[in-house]
């Protein structure tokens, strides 16, 4: 993790449902690649962090220092993927649900 780039980018994270205690009722998957976003959104922001217009303005205002206390924009998930989860409900019936926004495809500064 230590040699990760400084700039806002997607980092690897594998989530094992056993680690969060949900494996007793989740049949499948037992784990999945969730990823996460981390890194700087400081001025000047490279195109790769796909800043929103607001983030661009905010980072300039912060760099110029007109208004004290303005933080730099945040590195957050941009495009995300769904995940189908097969689990047992309280009556031990099998349920399949497709949850949106469960894993990160791309990150961006917002």
């Amino acid at each position, binding site marked *: 993790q230590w040699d990760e780039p400084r700039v806002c980018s997607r980092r690897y994270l594998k989530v094992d449902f056993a680690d969060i*205690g*949900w494996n007793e*009722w989740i049949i*499948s*998957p037992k*784990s999945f690649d969730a990823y996460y976003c981390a890194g700087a959104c400081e001025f000047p922001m490279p195109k790769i962090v796909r800043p929103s217009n607001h983030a661009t303005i905010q980072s300039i205002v912060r760099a110029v220092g007109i208004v004290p206390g303005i933080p730099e924009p945040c590195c957050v998930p941009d495009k995300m993927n769904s995940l189908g989860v097969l689990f047992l409900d309280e009556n031990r019936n*099998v*349920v*399949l649900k497709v*949850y949106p926004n469960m894993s990160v495809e791309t990150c961006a500064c917002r």
Partner: protein
Amino acid sequence: SHTAPAWSAQSAAADGLLRDKHSQRPLGDGAATLGPGAQDMVAVHMIRLYEKYSRRGARPGGGNTVRSFRAKLEVVNQKAVYFFNLTSMQDSEMILTATFHFYSEPLRWPRAREMLCKPRAKNASCRLLSPGPPVRQHLLFRSLSQNTATQGLLRGAMAVAPPPRALWQAKDISHIVKAARRDGELLLSAQLDSEERDPGVPSSSPHAPYILIYANDLAISEPNSVAVTLQRYDPFPAGDPEPRAAPNISADPRVRRAAQATGPLQDNELPGLDERPAHAPHVQHYHKHELWPSPFRALKPRPGRKDRRRKDQDMFMASSQVLDFDEKTMQKARRK
């Protein structure tokens, strides 16, 4: 209808299906989650739907949720009736389709006919014994709300033609389930009624019927929707006492203390020793060093009783101005 593989093939199908794409290993622990006897047809069917979605992103039934409901077999008036408890459906789940899956076998001819008629036999007797009109079977669906003793309201009846060979069949019961849910009757019963002498009560076998409900969960895009259905602490609290709430657990022995803030903690001066500027009227001003004796003053060890007596003499002697030394020290001093 979908052909039901023979049971051995079926369990092989289950094994084959229990291969999880993500971890490329047989779904061993997934099967463990299902429980020993629970890899029945409904589980195999649901795992097949999961595999289809995981592999091709095919949304099951066009929605984002599929709920399965296992049957509970009861005998009512010497007839086998299967009950389905649909109460686990969430209010936010809009029903798209509901299907009833049941395993049916061809009607058995009486033994005698089988003995007499060899396959493709020519003799007339077989022709005479040709099978009569196929016995018709009906599927009767009733709905009832929780804990009512009645047989429930008849919601639908479907004719079922006996199949040429044993296989699983599926019937669309969307209108029945939607009407029952609209009336708040989330207990459904299904009965296979046939005109022929009652074939007796089937044992609750892995061939028990089941219901699948394909729905669109309108709340699934809400923030934290995954926690609503998956964030649980005791997965199956039914029956077993809460391990944490042991009856004789005493009140928490620890005393909860709140840290009372004594007055506004604006500074770290000791309360009551306020140093106010000299110009303030009638203020006894202290100098800092008078207020704060050096924090590093070493603690003197407490002298023993004898020492104390000697110390008292010393003290007395010390009060005189001249220090007295022993003779040797005086001589040395005179010489110097």
